[in-house]
């Protein structure tokens, strides 16, 4: 292993991170200038803080995962920086909270790199993580702990801090799915039962997976968090497909998804509302469709280059800092800004899949795929929702939306991806033996 590739990778990471910090600082400057024509006194503080946090993360990667992918961290920094600027522009109080959560998240990022020395150690604790995931999902329903905000019971309140454990649950469940599927993928791929032309696996192989999946979705439905339920559904289907490379699973997943969607539509009033406002938002422009219609107006107001940071009226959209943050970006940064965010997300997701492809270990491959897919699905569900490509469901836009739990989860995902990437570079001559050693 030569020294220079590592150095050049980390050098590129530092350079790109510096650019990301400059973008964030300039964005902050523009937001402040839109309010009063003075350079804000705290501009250097913000710039130093962004740069400082990035440098901390960068040093952690240099020390703990020196051969990891070099674009993930700067892109996350760019998106997080842009998100902070947008949130701070919408509400300076939320901006301060978001800044604090960013610091906490980067700390979690570093701690993840410190404690997860090898991703395969996680593989061993799959049922522990399944258990943790279930607990995390159930917590908001616990009396005394759970809190209902905006009609969804997703929060756990500890003192002044509200936390959405569902964000963490997704990571735990992906870990379980990856570990379980790696074990069973051969039996699942070969199939057992033949129904017509379809070859389906033995129920006992698929059972635990289906159970975990079903229970998770039921809990989310109970909490009326349909966006997350949808993402988990699709995530599980895609991981099953990647593990087995059997298109039949995709067909079954899509069929199951459509059935679930129809049932949900019949059962829940708010699902009907979302579909109705998706089909004709302007019919409900003053009530149910208000948010979506305002979001569309925001994009129209932004046009090609946007109104400029701080110069639009994104506060016309209720909950703009969380679910509709992308509409605020569309209004003030225009099509240019939106496409820039999409390209950044695409690079992030592309790098994630690249890491998955380069992994030699099936577990790492599947785990990286799952983690990347969370970011991809979540981005598509919310951006598609606010632009009326699909019915709206409230989930956060990774790294950008206001929300500490989401930010924390995304930074942990990033650390895990970097860990896998670093593992790849080191090669794993002991891989095979490792797996035999672990077998019961």
């Amino acid at each position, binding site marked *: 292993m030569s020294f220079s590739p590592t150095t050049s990778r980390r050098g590129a990471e530092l350079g790109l991170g510096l650019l990301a910090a400059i973008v964030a600082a300039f964005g902050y400057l*523009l937001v402040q*200038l*839109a309010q009063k024509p003075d350079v804000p006194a705290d501009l250097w503080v913000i710039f130093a803080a962004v740069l400082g946090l990035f440098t901390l993360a960068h040093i952690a990667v240099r020390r703990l995962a020196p051969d990891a992918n070099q674009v993930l961290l700067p892109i996350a920094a760019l998106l997080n920086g842009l998100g902070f600027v947008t949130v701070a522009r919408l509400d300076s109080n939320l901006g301060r909270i978001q800044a604090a959560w960013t610091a906490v998240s980067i700390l979690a990022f570093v701690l993840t790199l410190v404690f997860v020395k090898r991703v395969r150690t996680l593989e061993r604790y799959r049922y522990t993580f399944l258990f943790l995931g279930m607990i995390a999902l159930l917590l908001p329903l616990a009396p005394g702990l759970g809190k209902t905000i905006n009609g969804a019971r997703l929060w756990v309140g500890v003192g002044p801090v509200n936390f959405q454990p569902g964000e963490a649950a997704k990571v735990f469940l992906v870990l379980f799915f990856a570990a379980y599927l790696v074990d069973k993928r051969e039996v699942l791929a070969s199939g057992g039962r033949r129904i017509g032309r379809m070859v389906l696996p033995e129920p006992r192989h698929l059972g635990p997976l289906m159970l975990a999946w079903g229970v998770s979705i039921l809990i989310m439905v109970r909490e009326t968090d349909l966006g997350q339920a949808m993402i988990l559904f699709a995530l599980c289907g*895609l991981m099953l*497909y*990647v*593990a087995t*490379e059997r298109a039949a699973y995709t067909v079954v997943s899509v069929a199951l998804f459509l059935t679930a969607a129809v049932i949900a539509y019949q059962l829940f009033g708010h699902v009907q509302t979302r579909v109705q406002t998706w089909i004709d938002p*302007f019919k409900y*422009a*003053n009530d149910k469709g208000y948010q979506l*219609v305002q979001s*569309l*107006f*925001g*994009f*129209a*107001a*932004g*046009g*090609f*280059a*946007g*109104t*400029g*940071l*701080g*110069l*639009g*009226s994104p506060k*016309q959209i209720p909950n703009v800092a969380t679910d509709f943050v992308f509409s605020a970006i*569309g209004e*003030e940064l*225009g*099509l240019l800004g*939106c*496409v820039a965010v*999409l390209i950044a*997300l*695409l690079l992030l*997701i*592309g790098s994630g*899949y690249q890491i*998955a*492809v380069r992994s030699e270990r*099936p577990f790492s*491959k*599947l785990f990286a*795929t799952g983690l990347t*897919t969370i970011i*991809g699905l979540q981005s*598509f569900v919310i*951006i*598609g929702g606010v*632009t*009326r*490509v699909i019915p709206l469901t409230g989930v956060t836009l990774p790294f950008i939306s206001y929300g500490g739990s989401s930010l924390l989860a995304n930074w942990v995902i990033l650390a895990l991806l970097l860990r896998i990437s670093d593992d790849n570079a080191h090669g794993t001559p002991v891989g095979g033996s490792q797996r035999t050693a672990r077998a019961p």
Partner: protein
Amino acid sequence: MNRAIRRVGIGVVALVLILVLQLTYLTIVDANNLKRNPHNVRALLSNANRPRGNIVTADGTLVAQSQKVSDGTVFKYLREYPTKDLFAQTVGYQSFVFGSTGVENTYNNALLGRENQLNLNNIPDIFSGKQTIGTVVLSMRADAQRLAQQLLGFQRGSVVLLDVKTGGVLAMYSNPSYDPNPFVSHNNQLAQAAFTAVQSNPDHPALPRAYRERYPPGSSFKTVTASVALGDGVATPSSTFPVRTQLQLPQSSNTLKNFGGESCGGTLVASFTVSCNTTFGQLGLQLGDQFVPGMAKFGIGQAPPVDISPGAVPSVGPPAGSFASNQPLFAFAGIGQGAVAVTPLQMALVAEGIANGGVILQPHVVSEIRDNNDKLIRRIDPSPWMTATTPQVAQAVTQMMVQVVQNGTGTAAQINGVTVAGKTGTAQSAPNQAPHAWFVAFAPAEAPRFAVAVLVEHGGGNLEATGGRVAAPIAAQMLKLVLGVK
């Protein structure tokens, strides 16, 4: 598994492409539809939430400005009119309840920084989000406007003062006026109450009499009659007319009488100097159907294209081709009565046409648009509106108008050291009401610079009022101010 991962990756790229397509549709293709949607209040808000340019007079007085406020409303800026009622009828107001009028309306894009030239000069700013707003510089002068207000005092009426070389309006004031500040208040109830009070006031303070109200011009219209008669070869300055007290009208048992029952006539010049009605009634009859196209060349029948919204109303004369059926109408038209009804602005334009050798310029109250940095963006250049008559005819009428001020009915308009050309008008309005007092003039007669029209409704309530007594002194004061004569 790699093949499946790559396929998932391709799927993600496809989804992102769908998002880009939809974003392009929303921000570019369908944007104008969405902006026009009645539920969309963003345009209104964005106008309310960005600074709006200043409006200043030619002599540097601030007429309209936007003040940053935080008064608990959604509006970030409050429009203010420091000159209160002085420019209300020309500059107007910009209200989110009642809409916008005047210069605020016609130059909205410049004030918001949306003028093309403003945008071209600031392409870098489009990306930085910096706002470019325009300052609108009026051709109007605050001192002239204030003097007009002061001279009219409590009398209802109008003063219009023009720069004959540019077509720029220097003063255009009508009494009474109103304060537009309450109209733009962010307190809706207050705004509504002020608006209702102004609208229901019987004196119509919101009516810009100068360009939106028509009055019979009386003898001041003899400037037009004389020009058309000279231009069409119906008369020469030395043509003689019978000396008499009244003119028997055809198709009627009525007569057209001279003012105060006097006896007058003689040459056209003499008749013009003493404002002899019988002569000009006869000219109206002699012109017949030629009279209507002749006065149309002065702009009668068309709205002057002044840069104010709502714009000027057209002045009117007798119906074209109606001479055969209604001859008395043409006799009365010759002395500016009957079917003739004009705006004070129109009469100022008549004076300007004679002063300019027959050419009437497009009137405008704004002279320049400047950017934030006081850089000139656009100048409103002089552009001809009408060719009213020939230089020769204009010269002959000027001579007659000089006689009016030197020896005739308009001696009150004399200015020391300056030759003033003018014409009085004392127009019958309603029975038992004092006549409207008019004076139209320009100066210096040999090299004209300024034209003025003064109207005092019902002579200010004085039954003995005449144009010479009531309006001419006001015209003289206005001309003295702009000519710099003490």
